[in-house]
């Protein structure tokens, strides 16, 4: 049993933002980085499947620059067996990322491929689906439960409003994993230290093709109709909230 998990090092924007000269992206000085929340659930699910099967391998793959190895190492510290990074610089669209991932999946031929439902920075919910399309794999999006059977899996897909769509998927398949499917384990300090020493297999991508879209400009969105900001001490803010609530509820 081999499960391949696609993981992304996501950018987290703090309280302030500045753009690059060409206004096509955020100045990287204003960004922090972390393993995408959805991908911790996907990695956990892969680990549980391998543990349940008694043997096998969890391979984590990320497309990005050297910094994205941090995301891979987080997963290695959780217990993943191997990390692969496909070298890439700059902003890629989800289809380009999928093209880079597809080469690795073809070379690894896993029994299952997992992606997160979405990345918290780009909110595309597209890379997993695009990868399934390129590989012509059966797939199911937004999965909250997996039961493996013989040559197929029964999965729960969570639709709008929480309605569950129970789907029978032929395997090998690609599933996009939703938060809440499990409780991701914490890596021990020792495991984190060990993961730092682990070798990451770095590969160069083939042709990633034409971009699916091109950035024109980025900007800070206008704030609604203008929220009235409540200034002052917490006591003053609380007093105003009480007044507003009182007015609106009568």
């Amino acid at each position: 049993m081999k499960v391949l998990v696609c993981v992304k090092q996501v950018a987290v924007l703090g309280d302030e933002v500045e753009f690059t000269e060409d206004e096509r992206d955020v100045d990287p000085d204003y960004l922090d980085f972390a393993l995408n929340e959805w991908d911790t659930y996907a990695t956990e699910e892969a680990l549980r499947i391998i543990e349940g099967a008694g043997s096998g391998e969890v391979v984590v793959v990320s497309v990005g620059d050297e910094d994205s190895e941090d995301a891979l190492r987080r997963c290695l510290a959780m217990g993943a067996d191997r990390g692969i990074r496909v070298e890439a610089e700059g902003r890629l669209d989800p289809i380009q990322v999928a093209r880079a991932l597809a080469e690795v999946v073809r070379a690894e031929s896993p029994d299952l491929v997992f992606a997160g439902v979405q990345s918290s920075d780009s909110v595309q919910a597209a890379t997993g689906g695009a990868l399934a399309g390129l590989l012509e794999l059966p797939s199911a999006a937004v999965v909250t439960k997996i039961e493996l059977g013989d040559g197929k899996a029964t999965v729960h897909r969570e639709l709008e409003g929480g309605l569950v769509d129970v789907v029978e998927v032929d395997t090998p398949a690609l599933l996009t994993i939703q938060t809440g499917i499990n409780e991701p384990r914490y890596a021990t300090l020792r495991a984190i230290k060990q993961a730092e020493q682990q070798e990451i297999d770095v590969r160069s991508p083939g042709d990633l093709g034409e971009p699916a879209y091109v950035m024109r400009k980025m900007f800070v969105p206008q704030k609604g109709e203008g929220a009235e900001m409540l200034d002052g001490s917490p006591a003053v803010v609380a007093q105003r909230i009480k007044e507003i609530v009182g007015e609106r509820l009568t």
Partner: protein
Amino acid sequence: MSVLVVAEHLRGQTRPITLELISAAQELEGPTTVAVIAKDPGALADQVGVTGVDEIVTVAVEQEEFENDVYREAVEQLIGDRSPAVTLVGFTVNSMGFAPALAAKLGLGFASDVFGLSRDGSDLIAERSFYGSKVSAEIEFPGHDQVLLMIRPTSWPPAEGAGSASRSELSATISGSRARHTEFQEVEAGDVDITTADFLLSVGRGVGEKENLGQFDDLAQKMGATLSVSRPLVDQGWMPNSRQVGQSGKTVKPKVYLALGISGAVQHLAGMKTSGTIIAVNTDPEAAIFSVAHYGAVTDLFEVAEELDKLYA
């Protein structure tokens, strides 16, 4: 620009996103074709014959409910047959499977979670967010004659008014469905119905730990509010799903929605942005929740909660 809208339906009803997609299509000045892919598409087609639709094309398939391969193959054949400049689908759970797959396979221009459309001469421009909804961006699709866009729900009003669309059929070859719908399972009803409350005190990941929740439950009672939460608190098993506000939880419209420590992710906003009065408390001045709030305070939620506790004692 010619537009193909892919209708969505569930259990015999057209989903609201379909009429929103028809409104979005009007920005591109058409002609607009709406495709209905279903076992019995006739009745559903009647539900989308609104003003602005030029043609309704029905595709009869064996499957009653959405299945990923069926939609992927049917929409591929629709695009092949009609060559639309732009194909619009919802940024919905169902479309998340087949739409990116198709865009990747056909090499289409593509973007998801699009909430704005415009044109610069003959070029299509789409608007979407980056960096967790904190930054907006205009994107374009040079070199692509055909573009597939996934549209954010509730970004356009539903199209309405009786239309005069022509009807046609397309017979699609579906080679097989490798992910088959077997049944639906309903969400369990909870102890309280947050959709009927006039006043929701809604808390998010900003509350930090499970141990802190009791304090907000008490506060809600004192204030005469019902406690609701964002998804991460349900994911961690702190609260039942019936208390969750948002796309995969409940859509609420209370008179007052007081949000403490909620960032305002698109899937959360989808469930509460039409509330009467929205008050948001968040330490991050750039939090997206402020874009829908009527009142905002950039401050620590625990300090405000403590003061509210005293005021409502």
